């Protein structure tokens, strides 16, 4: 090239002009910038856990590639859209109270809820299924006795005036949750809470100020003997005493109080087991949960006695709080403990109760309220589950899948490139088609990452559509510009116009097919499986029409122009 330049100066200058023109063209610039952004989105900040992603990128892989299970829950009858959202949140609360697992729960239409998870173990799946159907076992306990349980709650009065969040002062918002107990629980509540507040001092106006006892709320508390190490116990004791607003643990919570309320046998292991304690625990249950820092000899000793032992790992929460599935600690108030009467026979019975609390801002207050409302309602689903449909994909299947699908994608790409090269017999035309095709894949992958949707088989099929119609459009553009340039001396602009009409119309037909899917994906079960496919295909059509194909038109125009000038 350099040699050529020294001889034919005019052509060389033309070429230089072309190069600067090339980058100055806004269509090409737009493509380059979009590509850089897409690369950034796909590759930068890959700080996530590597599992579940494609290599070292931000591309999240779907169920088909990673393995997992899809549960489609059908409710007994159709319900309102608020109701189904509520049922969906109750279900997620039930199967994943800590919110740590990778479950997605999506309501579809008015009767279906789709649950996706990475779990494939049949035993675990059965547990999940049972949890969805079963009543969550909710307990509110005081001094080691049950005050009321989930199935004794008639209902949470969501429609009541007192349900909601109110501004209680500067930087203080009060939330309030009214609910109704059944008769049996009302009597028990009155009995168990009688005189559980005591006046500790008097206010300036002479009114007594009370300090009241606290109830602990549990959801699906395990029936098991709990064995913790001394170290773990000390950590938990300190953590509970410090409190944690996020976990609804008030400051100065006494670990012995929580253990008493759990109504479970708890052993703090100090090197030996008391035979009598083990024997009496075994009478109640043969299950034991052991803190994971205790060594295997402890597990063996328990197994010898006949216990089924589970090791429970320490998370960020206090270990014992996690094991118990404790949810909240709620203080009684003097208004309901009948402090004004001397004898329980005169006590007033309250079936309508109200739990309230204060937070610093309205948003926190409302999330506290909703969390507790769902907890109280989780005893029973407002509408029962009719059936659960299930689909599992084994993870090892997913693994081989992943590499195969990638291989197939690359192979298809090479084959397409070969066909194009054979047809045009000119690498200067074949290479841009190849590069633009690749750009469309990258831009669409960037889009998939941005929407935080996983790349599953449906999205992969969408990519096939994008590549296919993309290459089709590029061939149309190339032929249109080449054919016309040979015969009529039209301006480059009008040459491109005919091509534009064709690719626009074909892009809009693609959008016409895919639009109904994206619009109704949340309305019909099954259609949601096509959502990823439709979104990618539609977005691909738009990216093609507005970014890649205009740039391609410009590139081909320049190349054809150059070829003609040389001729």
């Amino acid at each position, binding site marked *: 090239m350099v040699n050529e330049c020294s001889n034919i100066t005019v052509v060389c200058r033309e070429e230089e002009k072309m190069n600067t023109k090339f980058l100055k063209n806004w269509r090409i610039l737009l493509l380059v910038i979009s590509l850089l952004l897409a690369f950034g989105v796909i590759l930068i900040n890959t700080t996530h856990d590597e599992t579940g992603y494609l290599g070292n990128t931000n591309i999240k892989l779907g169920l088909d590639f990673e393995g997992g299970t899809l549960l489609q829950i059908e409710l*007994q009858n159709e319900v309102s859209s608020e109701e189904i959202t509520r049922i969906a949140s109750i279900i997620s609360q039930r199967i994943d109270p800590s919110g740590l697992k990778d479950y997605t729960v999506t309501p579809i*239409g008015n*009767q*279906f809820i789709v649950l996706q998870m990475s779990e494939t173990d*049949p035993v675990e*799946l059965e547990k999940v299924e*049972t949890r969805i*159907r079963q*009543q969550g076992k909710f307990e509110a306990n005081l001094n080691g006795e049950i005050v009321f349980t989930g199935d004794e709650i008639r209902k949470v009065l969501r429609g009541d005036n007192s349900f909601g969040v109110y501004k209680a002062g500067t930087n203080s918002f009060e939330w309030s949750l009214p609910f109704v107990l059944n008769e049996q629980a009302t009597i028990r509540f009155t009995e168990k809470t009688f005189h559980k507040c005591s006046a500790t001092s008097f206010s300036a106006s002479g009114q007594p100020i009370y300090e009241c006892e606290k109830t602990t709320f549990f959801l699906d508390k395990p029936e098991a003997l709990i064995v913790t190490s001394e170290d773990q116990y000390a950590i938990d004791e300190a953590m509970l005493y410090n409190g944690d607003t996020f976990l609804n643990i008030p400051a100065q919570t006494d670990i012995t109080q929580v253990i008493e309320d759990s109504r479970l046998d708890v052993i703090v292991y100090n090197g030996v087991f008391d035979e009598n304690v083990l024997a009496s625990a075994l009478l109640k249950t043969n299950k034991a949960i052991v803190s994971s820092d205790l060594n295997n000899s402890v597990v063996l000793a328990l197994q010898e006695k006949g216990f089924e032992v589970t090791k429970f790992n320490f998370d960020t929460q206090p270990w014992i709080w996690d094991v118990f599935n404790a949810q909240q600690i709620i203080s009684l108030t003097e208004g309901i403990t009948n402090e004004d009467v001397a004898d329980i026979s005169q006590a007033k019975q309250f079936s309508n109760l109200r739990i309230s609390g204060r937070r610093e801002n309205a948003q926190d207050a409302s999330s506290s309220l909703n969390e507790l409302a769902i907890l109280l309602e989780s005893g*029973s689903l407002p509408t*029962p589950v009719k*059936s*659960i*449909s*299930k*689909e*599992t*994909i*084994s993870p*090892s*299947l997913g693994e081989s899948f992943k590499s*195969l699908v990638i*291989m*197939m994608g690359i192979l*298809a790409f090479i*084959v*397409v490139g*070969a066909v*194009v090269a054979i047809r045009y017999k000119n690498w200067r035309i074949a290479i841009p088609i190849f590069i633009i095709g690749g750009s469309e894949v990258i831009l669409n992958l960037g889009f998939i990452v941005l929407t935080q949707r996983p790349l599953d088989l449906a999205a*992969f*099929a*969408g990519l*096939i*559509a994008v590549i*296919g*119609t993309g*290459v*089709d459009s590029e*061939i149309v553009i190339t*032929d249109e510009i080449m*054919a016309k340039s040979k015969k009529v001396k039209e301006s480059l602009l009008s040459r491109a116009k*005919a091509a534009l*009409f064709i690719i626009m*119309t*074909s892009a*809009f*037909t693609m959008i*016409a097919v*895919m*639009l*109904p899917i994206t619009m*109704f994906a949340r309305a*019909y*079960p*099954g*259609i949601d*499986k*096509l959502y990823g*496919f439709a979104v990618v*295909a539609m977005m691909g059509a738009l990216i093609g029409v507005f970014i890649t194909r205009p740039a391609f038109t410009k590139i081909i125009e320049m190349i054809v122009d150059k070829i003609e000038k040389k001729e």
Partner: protein
Amino acid sequence: MDDYFGKDYKKFLIVPAILAIILLFLVFVAPGVSSGIDLTGGNVIIVRTAHELNKEQIETVLNENFDLEELNVSTIASPTGYGAWIEYSKNPLSAQAEDLLSKAESTLDDDTTSIAFSNELIVLLGGEEKTFSNSKLALLDAQDALANYKEEFSLKLQNILVENLDLGTDVEFQKKEISKTLGEASFGGMAFIALIGFVLIVLVIFIAFRQVVPSAAIIGAMIFDILAGLGGMALLNIPLSLTTMPALLLLIGYSVDTDIMLTSRLLKERSGTPGERATVSMKTGLTMTGTTLAALLAMIIVSYFYQIEVIYYISAILLFGLVGDVVSTWLMNAPILLWFVERKKK
């Protein structure tokens, strides 16, 4: 400039006409297109192993041990291993139990009756009759019993297959269980979006070309392509399902591309005779279809050998549809348009 169409182009229409009749027969008469279980409800178990699998042997083993309705087994062999698809609508015992369950559900307000139904179900599945304080608790127990039974049943089925076919530990199972109502709801949803999608496409085409005959021809070609795709499904025994639906939708996208290109060039350009323009378009169109067909062939080969059903299905349907597209665009749409242009001149 070449003109492959000449004066007798109308004769070309015979080919798509005959093909359409054959395809209609394949799709609607025999062998017909079946619906997948995600649209009808039912159970599928996919087995993958390095051991050779035999269709008859699997059927015999299952029939000896179980009483499965509408059992359908298909096997596949590839260099990477063997696979079997076992499909059945349900087993009679769980069907009976589901029937009792819905009776218990519909009588929830009447404690005694509902509890009786729930208990009947529990006993039917091998449990013991219990006393319940209310119908809801009984129903939950009954639902649980049924879920447990189903899980145990599928485990038992897997174990029996492993034992009788000597599969050892080198085997993978994949399961799918879709309830009948869910299948029906999915089918309804799919029909609905297909209908709306079709109406929107017709709108886009009519707005773009604003002439009845060319627009109708494009839509006719699109229907022909879908018919070709369905014909392929009938021949290869690929069921219509939520995984094959995208293939049919893709077919629409691919098929209109060539038709739009042809129509636009024939109607909007003035260089050469219509026959010549159609010939130039055909070169472009065949390149378009050619690239896609080449990519599809690569995908079919890989997915067939490695048993990736979904991709195999999608690419096989597209292959049939695009071969159909060559016929519908160049032997049907092109002659119709040439005829239309000729008549307009007169």
